[in-house]
């Protein structure tokens, strides 16, 4: 009698676990179909025996879809912006298809639009021209003095509070909210993509790579560029395959 009860309980437990799993799997499938029905999303999926391969394939197809969409929506602008944002914002769902794994990745289109319609970012294919820098170490005091050895006298760099704040922006995804906040508080008047940067005016630049990491915070002053992190003279030409956004404080 006891064994009989135990067997029944065990069967019920197994069945309920199975039902719970089936329910979860069904819920994920419903969620996936809901996203696929909604044209506000870009998605990709892949089914494979191996979960990692399914995820990798889905990610590859996903980036291709983003590129295609970016090219159509913003033909005059860089699609790299969309790709970088998509990598940041993408959501992944995994489920089973029989014995196989189904990887699904998606992102909302509105989350990957460029900075603004008027000031989209352009990824610049830059030549790797090293900056000719004449830096003389002060042998007595061990301090880098950029003013010596240059044909033009350079001021020592001291960061303002606003520049310190600028340095806190670490990722491409954080640039937009940063500039939007400054625009709202009327601290920033103009901003835009590198291709539209005014050549004869002072401004600041975020330089970012294809993974969305900020590689440099530059200050352009009197046509000379300084790196706000290294506090040394720098140049955007040093950052190959990177994009840049410029802005000007009022």
């Amino acid at each position: 009698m006891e064994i009989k009860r135990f067997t029944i309980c065990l069967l019920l437990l197994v069945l309920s676990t199975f039902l719970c799993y089936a329910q979860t799997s069904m819920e994920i499938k419903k969620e996936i179909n809901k996203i696929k029905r909604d044209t506000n999303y870009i998605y990709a999926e892949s089914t494979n025996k191996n979960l990692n391969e399914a995820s990798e394939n889905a990610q590859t197809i996903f980036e291709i879809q983003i590129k295609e969409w970016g090219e159509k929506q913003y033909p005059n602008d860089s699609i790299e912006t969309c790709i970088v944002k998509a990598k940041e914002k993408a959501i992944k769902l995994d489920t089973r298809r029989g014995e196989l794994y189904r990887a699904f990745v998606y992102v909302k289109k509105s989350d990957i639009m460029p900075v603004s319609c008027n000031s989209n970012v352009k990824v610049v294919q830059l030549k790797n021209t090293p900056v000719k820098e004449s830096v003389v170490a002060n042998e007595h005091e061990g301090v880098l003095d950029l003013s010596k050895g240059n044909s033009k006298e350079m001021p020592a760099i001291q960061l303002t509070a606003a520049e310190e704040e600028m340095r806190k922006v670490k990722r491409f995804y954080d640039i937009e909210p940063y500039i939007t906040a400054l625009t709202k508080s009327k601290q920033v008047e103009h901003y835009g993509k590198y291709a539209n940067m005014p050549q004869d005016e002072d401004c600041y630049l975020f330089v970012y790579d294809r993974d969305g990491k900020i590689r440099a915070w530059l200050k352009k002053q009197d046509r000379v560029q300084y790196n706000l992190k290294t506090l040394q003279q720098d140049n955007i030409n040093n950052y190959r395959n990177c994009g840049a956004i410029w802005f000007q404080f009022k």
Partner: protein
Amino acid sequence: MRKILLFLVLLSASLLKADNIKITLSDGIDNPTVKSKIERSASRILTEINQAQKENRSLNFAAMGVSVRVQESMAMLWENSPFVCTDDEIVEHCITTGPGYQIRNIPLMMKPTGERVFNEEDYQEAVISFDKAGNVESFYLSISMNLYMNVIKSNLELTDLRRRQLILDYVEQFRTAYNQKDIKFLNQVFSDDALIITGKVIQQKHSEGFSTPKIQYNKQSKEQYIKNLSRIFKKNSYIKVIFNDIEVMRHPVNPNFYGVTLLQGWTSGEYHDDGYLFLLWDFTNENAPQIHVRTWQPDKIGSKPLDKNEVFSLSDFDI
């Protein structure tokens, strides 16, 4: 207690059972009438597939409402291996093609019966093509995901990617045409002035008395090739072509031309061979791409694999 158990078993069975398969096209088609027709047709096809698999029987084409041509091609696929649609609801884009529309990425699990050797992946994705009015034009299996990813990952730029996807689609239809003995498609896809080269291994006798294997090449016109192929199709009830490897190269000067190299396995009746198939595709008219050159070489000479440098490629032809 028995009644409770029975209830639970029935409940779980009802949760897992899939009746009608629902098809929803998320976008890609403006005409609501045609959209609805396509969704209903696709639903009927996939529902019948699952029902036939469940009942372990042949496909009931009356339930599908498809043309004789589609019936024949589906029957051949089913004969090779029955299959089942894994999802009870499918949501996909509707893709506009030259002649009409397409639904892709339909998930199928192959259920080979064991009557025939089955060397393909268990999971395949199907494509259903429709004409402009929403009538089913074809049902075929798309190229395997591994091959697809190999080609897609090697794309250079977006236009190139779109072309590569188109090429893969046509390569798959090309393979299906052999499997389904669709001489009409093959006649149409080869250009009238197509060059067909086939190679076979012969033993070359030397004056010293020994012989070495070498490949002898034979040139045919399109007309000769199609005539010979028709004879092979009539003689053999069963033909199976698979592609195990694929390489797509764009012509460096003429971007409409692509060289596609495939490692092909051909089985017809008791005969089987493996070899490198090279196709020179012309996508000047994307709605009707054509093959200008088709070459075939055995993958081995004797027991030695064919040197990759010996395999025909784009550079061997003046375009």
